[in-house]
């Protein structure tokens, strides 16, 4: 037993016990050893969280794979296996391709804008100036407001007739008056609907990009930078060899979170346009909801939602590798 406990690592109390009363410990059965006790204690603490997640995330995920290959629908609880029919049906649906294309456009365009806005905001907030706390508090409001709530405020600002955005544009002479051909109906015109939704997503999440970047920068100890400076490293060398590697893991986590949330978020588009007009702003989550819940075709809906997985996977793998490399 003593060898086992020594092999078990430098557990401080076990070490103490071995040194002071080695005779007693050596007679303990294995489950009374300190290491075993610690493991039992640890797994007991871990169990509730692990079980909850296993039962309500793991199992449903597998269940969604099952739904996707069945003809399950809301009215009929007995589902039968239909193979890849649901995927094939989605594949043959024009709306599906529009939604997939829109999802990708949404993700990429939004990412570009929030990276630009987030980075510039982060660099500004990195400075010290009077009133910094207040200003930081104000600029993060879009991110802290519950999403459904802020989307409603945008829906009002995009109103077809009483849009405040249009009021300003009209007074500036950039567009005509209400009813004229140059009066934009943000949520009603096919070419404007998707950009309008993307704008709301960018507005909502650019503070998050900025916060994540800031967190990355503040995680770099100034002493290390100073030391490098003293040793004669140039600004770019410091940036390349110290700042970048130190903030990279945090940036990756932020990037992944944002990708997942943007790709899978239904609320912005659903509340603004429901995917309309004529599917112009339809994205995969909205389509999955409309087919799975509104039309009651659980199998088809699950299949469409699962098409998000290949889109999410690269981001997930990237971050998984990153976390693995982090010191645990």
């Amino acid at each position, binding site marked *: 037993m003593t060898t086992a406990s020594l092999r078990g690592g430098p557990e401080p*109390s076990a070490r103490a016990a071995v040194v002071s009363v080695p005779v007693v410990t050596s007679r303990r059965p294995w489950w009374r050893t300190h290491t075993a006790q610690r*493991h039992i204690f*640890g*797994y007991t*603490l*871990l169990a*509730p*969280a692990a079980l*909850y997640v296993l039962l*309500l*995330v793991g*199992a*449903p*995920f597998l*269940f*969604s794979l099952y*739904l996707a290959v069945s003809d399950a629908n809301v009215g009929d609880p007995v589902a039968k296996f239909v193979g890849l029919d649901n995927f094939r049906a989605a594949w043959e649906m024009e709306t599906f391709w529009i939604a997939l294309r829109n999802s990708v456009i949404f993700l990429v365009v939004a990412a570009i804008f929030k990276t630009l*806005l987030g980075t510039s*905001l982060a660099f*500004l907030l990195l400075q010290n*100036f*009077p009133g910094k706390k207040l200003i930081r*508090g*104000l*600029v*993060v*409001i*879009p991110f*802290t*407001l*519950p*999403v459904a*709530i*802020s*989307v409603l*405020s945008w829906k*009002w600002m995009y*109103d077809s007739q*009483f849009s*405040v955005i249009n*009021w300003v544009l009209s007074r500036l002479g950039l567009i005509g008056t209400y009813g004229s051909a140059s009066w934009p109906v943000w949520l009603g015109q096919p070419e404007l609907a998707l950009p309008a939704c993307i704008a709301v997503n960018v*507005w909502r999440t650019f503070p998050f990009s900025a916060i994540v970047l800031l967190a990355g920068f503040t995680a770099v100890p100034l002493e290390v930078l100073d030391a490098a400076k003293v040793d004669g490293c140039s600004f770019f060398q410091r940036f390349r060899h110290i700042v970048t590697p130190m903030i990279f893991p*945090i940036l990756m986590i*932020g990037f*992944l979170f944002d990708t*997942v*949330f943007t790709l*899978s978020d239904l*609320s912005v588009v*659903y*509340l603004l346009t429901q995917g309309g007009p004529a599917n112009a702003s339809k994205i995969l989550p909205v389509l*999955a*909801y409309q087919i799975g*819940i509104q039309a009651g075709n*659980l199998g088809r809906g699950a299949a469409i939602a699962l098409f*998000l*997985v290949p889109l*999410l996977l690269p981001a997930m793998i990237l971050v998984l590798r990153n*976390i693995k490399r982090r010191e*645990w």
Partner: protein
Amino acid sequence: MAPKTQREKAVRRNLWIYAGLTPFVFMAVFPIYWMVITAFKQDPDLYRMENIPFWFNMAPTLKHFETLFYQTNYGSWIINTMVIAFWVAVITLLTAVPAGYALARLRLPGAENIGIAIFMTYLVPGIILFLPLSRVVATLGLQDSWWALVLVYPTFTIPFCTWLMMGFFKTVPLEMEEAARVDGCGQLGALIRVVLPVSLPGVLTSVIFAFTLSMQDFLYGLAFVSPGDQKPVPVGVPTELIRGDVYYWGSIMAAVLLVGLPVAILYNFFLDRFIQGITGGVVK
């Protein structure tokens, strides 16, 4: 020109920073301002385009708030929101705090992989889970009640808060725990008497996140809860106050304002903790 003094330089620099920040502040705050002013405007004032809309052209009114409380389920939605948040926070604390401690401190075999697995479940989006979960909710007989949301919201709060707590527990000096053990505390005693009090900021942060993350949900509430009086605010307002093509913008803005602003302010208070949390708790 004479060389500038140190002070002048500083003022100049600050002015540049403010100039750079102004568009961001405007962008962030204008929709909120617009919400506030809409909530207090009389209807004729709202729907008239000749006047400058940025200020009151008629006397402010509380009529929209009255409509909200007397003619809709708004009161119930607020209560639902609070009760849901309370239960979600309780479930999250009871599971995520011990799990975070076990993963950060007890050197369990496989701890690293379990931690990553739990983290990854946070990234399984609701849009993939909501159809199977709708079956789970129906099987348990929870459909059409806010208890359905108490059941499903921890699926994202537990992974997030476990991760958060792990970060916090790693920052508690190991010596404190060892000292407690030497002084005769058991493992559980050391956790409850020494580690938890020191990690109180982390625990509080978890509570805040259980609340704010629940408020961010729209999909689950939309899919699982249809009776008008069972909805939380973020779901009730868009689904019940928008009837067909008729919009009650004054009341809608009043409704979202009352809940949205306190949540945003609360979140703001915890911004520093939030930053600490996602960086794994960098404590100086």
